[in-house]
């Protein structure tokens, strides 16, 4: 089963990219899609438009899905709680608030909003980490995270409701998580963070299994948990922050991808973690593409489509693992 998945998951990812590239207002032939995927600028006008508009969105979905999923799984291991997700750290709310405040109150230019969101997300995560540092593995992280989220959430609502109706609608779409506005520059930002953080996350995989055995046993196995846990929380925050800054809070995916991967692959975190990344990539791309193409002219924000898609995938994985031996 695990070997089948090893081939199946990347294949599913590739198929999704192919599908996503063809979906939209402009019809795209196979040749045009290939031309767009081919490195270098495309001479064909349709291919050039795919390359400029759809490719960044697809790339961003793949990277953001992998990053938010890795972030969620890391936090679930640190907090030893399957309900932990990147939102818990205040990364989502912190990023949302910084971007909203930047746009609504300070009239920041669009190019400055993404760095602002990044800063808000990391600053909030650092504050939560500091406040909960004594009981990261206990309920402390979760309690502090919930409290900070409530506080930031109410401030966010305050800003959103203080603007006009049109502004509210625009912000509401983004604050549910959306890939609609993703530019090539946004993709470059995501890619730069992903290039550093995803390998680091994969490298951290070998410390995750001992952590699940409890603090005493992990330390007895030679792990300095008082150093490792804060490092993992920071890594999780850094993985989620650029995603929030670019796409808004992609709700649910960070919570669900780890569970899906665990159901499908079972076993060690060194396997589950890349599995969760692939799951996240596939689900986010599928959800975003379905959201923008299944019910035209309505474009469902990726955050909402992800919640639906993630739920369906989870139910499917749970059914699958009841039959297979992989659980």
């Amino acid at each position, binding site marked *: 089963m695990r070997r089948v998945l090893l081939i199946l998951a990347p294949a599913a990812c590739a198929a999704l990219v192919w599908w996503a590239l063809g979906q939209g207002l402009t019809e795209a032939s196979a040749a045009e899609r290939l031309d767009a995927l081919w490195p270098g600028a495309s001479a064909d006008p349709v291919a050039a438009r795919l390359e400029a508009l759809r490719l960044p969105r697809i790339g961003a979905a793949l990277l953001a899905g992998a990053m938010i999923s890795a972030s969620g799984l890391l936090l679930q291991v640190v907090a030893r709680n399957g309900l932990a997700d990147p939102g818990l750290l205040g990364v989502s709310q912190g990023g949302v608030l910084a971007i909203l405040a930047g746009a609504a109150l300070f009239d920041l230019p669009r190019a400055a909003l993404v760095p602002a969101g990044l800063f808000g997300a990391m600053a909030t995560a650092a504050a939560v980490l500091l406040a909960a540092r004594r009981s990261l593995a206990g309920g402390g992280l979760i309690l502090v995270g919930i409290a900070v989220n409530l506080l930031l959430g109410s401030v966010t609502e305050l800003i959103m409701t203080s603007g006009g109706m049109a502004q509210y609608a625009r912000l509401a779409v983004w604050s549910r998580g959306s890939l609609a506005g993703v530019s090539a520059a946004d993709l470059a930002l995501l890619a730069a963070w992903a290039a550093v953080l995803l390998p680091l996350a994969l490298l951290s995989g070998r410390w995750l299994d001992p952590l699940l055995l*409890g603090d005493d046993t992990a330390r007895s*196995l030679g792990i300095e948990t008082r150093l490792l846990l804060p490092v993992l929380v920071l890594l999780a925050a850094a993985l989620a922050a650029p995603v929030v800054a670019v796409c808004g809070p992609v709700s649910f995916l960070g919570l669900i991808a780890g569970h899906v991967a665990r159901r499908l692959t*079972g*076993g060690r975190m060194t396997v589950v973690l890349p599995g969760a990344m692939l799951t996240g990539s596939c689900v986010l791309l599928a959800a975003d593409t379905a959201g923008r193409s299944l019910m035209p002219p309505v474009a469902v924000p990726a955050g909402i489509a992800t919640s639906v898609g993630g739920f369906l995938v989870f139910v499917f994985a749970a059914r699958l693992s009841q039959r297979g031996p992989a659980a």
Partner: protein
Amino acid sequence: MAARGCPVILERLSFGYGRGRLLEDISLSVRRGEVLALVGPNGSGKSTLLRLMAGLLQPVAGRVLICGENAARLSRRAYARRVALLSQQGGAPGAIRVRDLVAMGRFPHQGWLRRASAADRAAVAQAMEDAEVAALAGRPVNTLSGGQAQRARMAMTLAQGGDVLLLDEPTTYLDLRHQFGLLGRARRAAAEGRAVVAVLHDFSLASLYADRLAVLHEGRLDGIGPAAQVLDAAALARVFGVSARLLRDGPAIFPVPRD
């Protein structure tokens, strides 16, 4: 060289939170080839003492020597190569397989890019054999019974190797056959030259499998020595507050209530 013969030496060890003391002025040493049982009532400080030996707690006074080195100066990794602990806290390893769990015992012996060496694989196979979980190697841990899971965790602890083996109530969840099996394995670990310390509640098992018993009473060492010396009706009355007499059969001692 006292240190070479005694991988664990506690020197006037005290521990507590704030002003209260959970352990007061404990001095003892554990020799290679010896099984020491920690006995005492609930809350007498047995598990705390074991965690101090494991370096999981820092003493407020006194010190712990591991193989002659001050425990406070050992890195976690260096500690883990010398001292293996079977902890009471279960954790939730989830769907991991038994052989992967046992292989985690080799963690302190491996570098950043984990590569299981031939020695690692041999240690894992041997430990699964010794803890009688070889037949369960492919089973996910969350499908095991309580006793099977306990044996799997014992196998992980055995695979870790080192000079000192610490067991916190290792016979919990185990049926009689596996209680004998696990403590017999602890004895063999001692015979191979390790120092073994086990928190035990069962006096008959302690008297059968341990060379010496350390009796803890309200955070102090009430007595230490062979079972026949430290276990008598007076000690049971003083430490456990029970009126009991002791039946003896060979080395084994069984307390039975008087009246």
